[in-house]
């Protein structure tokens, strides 16, 4: 008979050693009957046993000391997760409402503009429209097309799209068409003025050279946004939402993901404080109750405050927006007896990966409060910001 395969021997050792032979599965019972009579296989079994013990010894050299946290912690965490999911759902609904409101505003503004210039481009017949509009359309350039409001997307379109729109307008304005002024979609002031200017002396139809020239102008003209800076400013005067008032946009409550940490849906960047347990969003009072007074950069808005555990103690991550950057401050109280190490750490420049400003972390201490700061900023800028830190 052939000798027994190692797999069977390990199976026996792992699952059945010490079991009465009659209780073994058929395959193992036969195998062990052979082992009993075969010196080679007995040696193999002994060797397998020794290897097994060896592996246990090796792996025991890398066993973490495990202090089992109470199960309630898991339940609390699960509840927080559910709560966060609910908040997220509500915030999505809020965003949808905001979007709907924006659309209503845009439509309303368009309607008002249309109502403001109702008769300026309302000739009495389609033929008159064609006489007036064709040359104007032929001289159409992109900024004018922008304010036409055709389809509401012209201002953001690329030149090729503008040409297509222009051609459509030209077709509508041709003598054979039955289009009315409304049919052309012409309603804003600038083209209306252009139409009036061109009305008397213009030829009925644009010449090929005029059309070519218009196309050239359209091709070369840069696309412009529909909304001007002034419009945007009006919107941005609205009160910004803060994390504390909305929700956390996260699929997991961990700070080791790139997460969208502000209500405007911008990615705040990878947060480097990626170790430790969950980081739950809390308000400042709760955070300060756990960790004590926090250090923040005065005059910079707080995007979020999260609380978790680090180095076996409560810790807080404060995200603050400074201009376009988000500064992330990990704060915790230093354990007694570690002061010297922390001071040394504070004085030691961190390991900075070339070309990756985000890997910079600057450590500062304020009394027994340790602050590890990081931002999408150059180290000097970050250092300057950290100098501003203030504690309540």
């Amino acid at each position, binding site marked *: 008979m052939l000798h027994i395969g190692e*797999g069977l021997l390990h*199976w026996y050792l792992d699952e059945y050693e010490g079991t009465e032979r009659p209780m073994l599965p058929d395959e193992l019972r036969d195998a062990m009957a052979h082992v009993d009579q075969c010196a080679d296989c007995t040696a193999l079994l002994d060797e*397998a046993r020794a*290897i097994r013990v060896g592996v246990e010894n*090796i792996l025991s050299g890398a066993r973490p000391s495990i202090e089992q946290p109470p199960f309630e912690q*898991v339940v609390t*965490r699960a509840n927080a997760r559910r709560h966060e999911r609910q908040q997220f759902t509500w915030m999505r609904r809020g965003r949808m409402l905001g979007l709907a409101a924006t659309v209503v505003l845009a439509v309303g503004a368009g309607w008002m503009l249309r109502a403001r210039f109702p008769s300026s481009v309302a000739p009495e017949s389609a033929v008159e429209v064609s006489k007036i509009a064709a040359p104007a359309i032929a001289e159409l350039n992109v900024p004018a097309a922008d304010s036409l409001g055709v389809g509401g997307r012209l201002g953001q379109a690329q030149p090729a799209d503008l040409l297509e729109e222009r051609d459509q307008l030209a077709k509508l304005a041709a003598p054979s068409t039955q289009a009315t002024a409304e049919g052309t979609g012409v309603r804003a002031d600038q083209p209306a003025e252009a139409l009036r200017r061109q009305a008397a002396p213009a030829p009925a139809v644009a010449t090929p050279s005029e059309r070519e020239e218009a196309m050239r102008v359209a091709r070369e003209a840069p696309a412009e946004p529909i909304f001007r800076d002034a419009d945007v400013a009006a919107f941005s005067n609205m009160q910004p939402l803060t994390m504390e008032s909305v929700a956390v946009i996260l699929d997991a409550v961990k700070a080791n993901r790139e997460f969208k940490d502000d209500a405007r849906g911008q990615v705040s960047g990878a947060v480097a404080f990626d170790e430790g347990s969950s980081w739950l969003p809390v308000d400042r009072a709760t955070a300060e109750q756990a960790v004590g007074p926090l250090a923040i950069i005065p005059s910079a808005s707080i995007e979020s405050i999260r609380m978790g555990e680090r180095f076996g103690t409560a810790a807080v991550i404060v995200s603050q927006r400074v201009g376009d950057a988000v500064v992330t401050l990990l704060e915790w109280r230093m354990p007694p007896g*570690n002061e010297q190490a922390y001071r040394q750490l504070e004085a030691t420049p961190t390991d900075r990966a070339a070309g990756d400003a985000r890997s910079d*972390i600057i450590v500062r201490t304020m009394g027994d409060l340790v602050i590890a700061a990081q931002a999408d900023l150059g180290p000097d800028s970050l250092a300057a910001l950290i100098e501003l830190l203030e504690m309540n």
Partner: protein
Amino acid sequence: MSVDWAAVYIATFDDLVRFLYRKVWDPDRAKDLAQEAFVRGLDESPDNPRAWLFTVAGNLARDEARTVIRRRQHLALIKSETNPHARENPAQELEDKERISAVRRALDELSDRDRDVLLLWDAGLEYPAIAAETGLSPKAVGTTLARARRRLVEAHGKLEGTHAAHR
């Protein structure tokens, strides 16, 4: 079937942490991921909670491996600098580090499947559960374990030999 997660937690948490630790090599992270697996479990009622937890934990560890490259090395520096036990016995600490490093490197010598099977076995899973987790037949689990154990012992021995030669 509802699961008594509290009982499963008490019986499985340590094994799960040990299993995860050999994958992420960070005890705090391993604990965190183990808890995360239980957090996810509370919304589920798997037939075999223990096996289910190891599956989830394995996936979490894989995700962790993907993000680990984005970790900042100096955080480890901060951590080691601030570990209250770190300076109590520097020699012991160094020895521990070397031992863990040797185990880690020896495990790295194994193929993914061999390592997974070995770690699942070390975490206390029985052959049928390991088979279900890895897609192997129970008999093949024995063969895989035999190979994995032999390779681990050889790789570790080699590393120890190299280390001794350097001393």
